[in-house]
C-alpha cells in the first residue's frame, strides 16, 4: 500500500497544511523539500511511495524537475500540484509520467480524491 509521501513545495505554509491533511488521512510524510535540489537529495534517502510536487519552484522548472524525479525514482507516484490550472501544463506533466494532477487551492476532500485515484 502506498503510504509514504514526500512534499515538494517552496512554501513552508503549503507544506505544513499538506502535511496536516496527509497525516490526518493516515499517510506518513517522510520528507519535505523546499526546492528542486532538496527534492532530488531527499529522494535518494527517503524513497517515498508518493511525491506531491509543486510545479512552480524558485530553482527549477517544474516539468524538468518532474522528469528528473521520475528518472531517479521510477517507482514513486508523482502528483503534480499547482494553481496554474493550465491544460497544457497538466497535459505535459501527465505525458511526462505524472500520475495525477492536484489543483490548488486544495481541500482535504480533493486530496483524498486524487490519492484514491492512484489506486491506494
Amino acid at each position, binding site marked *: 500500500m502506498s503510504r509514504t509521501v514526500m512534499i515538494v513545495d*517552496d*512554501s*513552508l*505554509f*503549503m507544506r*505544513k*497544511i499538506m502535511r*496536516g*491533511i496527509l497525516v*490526518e488521512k493516515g499517510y506518513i510524510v517522510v520528507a519535505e523539500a523546499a526546492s528542486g535540489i532538496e527534492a532530488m*537529495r531527499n529522494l*535518494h*534517502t527517503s524513497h517515498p511511495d508518493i511525491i506531491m510536487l509543486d510545479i*512552480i519552484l*524558485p530553482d527549477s522548472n517544474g516539468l524538468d524537475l518532474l522528469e528528473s524525479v521520475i528518472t531517479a525514482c521510477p517507482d514513486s507516484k508523482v502528483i503534480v500540484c499547482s*494553481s496554474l490550472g493550465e491544460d497544457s501544463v497538466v497535459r505535459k506533466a501527465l505525458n511526462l509520467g505524472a500520475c495525477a494532477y492536484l489543483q*490548488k*487551492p*486544495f*481541500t*482535504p476532500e480533493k486530496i483524498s480524491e486524487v490519492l484514491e485515484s492512484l489506486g491506494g
Partner: protein
Amino acid sequence: MDMSPYRDLFVSEARSHLSAFSELIVRLEDSPDDPAAIDELFRHAHSMKGMAATMGFEQVVGIAHLMESQLSRVRSGEFRMQPAFADLLLESGDTLGRLVSVIEAGSGAAEDTTGLLERLASFDPSAEEEPVASATPPAEEADTPRETPAATPHEFRLADTFKSIRIKTETLDRLVNITGDLITNRYRLDEAIRLANAAAECHEPLHQLTALLRTLRDEVFKARMLPFSFVAERFPRLVRDLARRQEKEIRFHLEGKEIELDRGILEEITEPIVHILRNAVDHGLETADERIRAGKPAASTLSLTVNRDKDHVEIIIADDGRGMDPERLKQKAVDKGLITREQADRMTPQEAYQLICTPGFSTAETVTDISGRGVGMDAVRTAVTALAGVLTIHSQIGQGSRFVMRLPITVSIIHALMVRCGAFEIAFPLNVVVRTLELKPSEIFGEPGQRSISPEDHSAPLRSLRQSLNLPESVGGGDALQPVIVCDIGGAVVAFSVDHILGQQEIFVRPLRSPLSHLRGVGGATITGDGRVLFVADVSALA
C-alpha cells in the same frame, strides 16, 4: 479542517512575500526589463494567491489574482514595467499588508477593496505611455493626476503592526547581564536575611522574588532564541562546494534545524561546526575510487543533526568516511613529544581521539587550503568548553567518525557544584560532573601520582584538586572519607579529590579578562551570595 493552526504561518509567510514584492518593484523601476525580477514578482503574487485560497481569505485572493494576471501581461511582453503600474502594484502590496494584519489580529474592520480591484482589473498601460511619447504634451495635462482620486500614492509608513518590534542584540545581551546580576543579588539577599536572623516576614517576598526572577530569566532567554536554521542554511552549499573542489561525491543531510538555541551560542558555535565539516570533507571522507576499493558506496554521507535534550542541545556531525586509528593518533602524539609512550599506552581509544584537539596536533599528511590551517580542533574544543559544553569524538576505522557537541541552550547562567579546596571555593559546571562519591582509603587504587578510582585499569584516574591548584596536600586523615567528584570530559572520566563538597547552586558566569583569563584551569568567575568572587573550573584544563 481547522485552519487556525496555520494562520500564524500564513501571516509570516505572506509578510515575507510582500516585503520581497515591494523590494522587487523598486528594483524594477531601475531596470524595468529584468525578466528574472518580473518572474519573481509573478511567483510572489502567485504564492500569495495560493496560500490565501487555501485559507479561504477571499479578499487577498482577489487582489493577488489580479496582480498575477497583470504581471503575466508584463511577462509576455504585452507592456513594460512603468511608474503608474509600479505605483498600482505597491498600493496593492500595501493593501494586502493591511489585510494580513487584520488576519493576524483575528479581527478588525474589513477594508473595502473594490476600488483597488477595479483599477487593477482595468489597468491600461497605454494611458501613461502616450503623454511621454508625445513630443510636446500640453502643460496642464502633464500636471493632471492620471488616476482617479482613490489612488493614494505609495508612501513610506511604519510597520503596520506593533505586535513585534526589532531590537538590537546588544539590548538583549544587557538584559541577560542585568538578569544575571539580579540572580546573584537574590542569593546575597537570601544570605543577608539568614545571617541577620531577620523576621519571618522576609521569607514570603523573597520566595516571590525568586519565582519572578526565574520567570524573568526564562523570558529573557526565550527572546534570545533563534532556530539553528539561522546559521545552518549555508551549510549544504558549503559542503557541496568543498566536495566539488575535492572531487568527492557527498550526500549531506541536515536535521533538526528548527531547534532553537541562544543567539550567543549560535554565534560561537558556527565556526567550530564549519571547521568540523571542512575536516570531514577534506580528511574524513574518501574519494569515490577509494571508497569503491574499500567496498563502500561511491557516494559518502555527511550529516549534521541537532537534538534537543532537556536543557541541552546536541550537535552531531557524522561521516561514513575512513575513520581514525587511535594507535596512529597516539604514535603521532608521541612523535611530536606531546605525550610519553607510557601515557600513550594507558590511553583508551576515546582519549586517543581527543588528541586531535591538542594544540599543535594534526594528522593530515598535507595541509590543504580547505582545512588544516592554523585553527584546528583545539580551537573547536576551546570554543565548546567556553560555552560550558562538551565535545565527544567517536570513530571506527573504515566506518567513519562522529563529533558530538553537547551544549547548554542558554549562556551565562549555569548550574554548578560548589567545592572547597584549601582556602578556595570553586564552582564545577554541572554539565561535566557525572557524580559525587565519598571514598574510603581502601577504595582508592594505584600508587600516589597514578591513583585511580577503578581497581582494574586506569580508565578513571583520580587527580588531587589541591595538586592541580598547586596547594599543599592535606595531611591524610586515616580512615576519613575522601570526597570525590567524577567528571566526564569528552568521554574521558576523571575524578578529582576535594576537601569538601558544598552543594549545588545556580551561578551567573562572567568571562575573565586579561590577565586573569590566562589562569590555567579557570573558565570564568562568579559572585557568591555573600559577595565573594569565586572561580569557575575549566575541568578539561585541570585534568
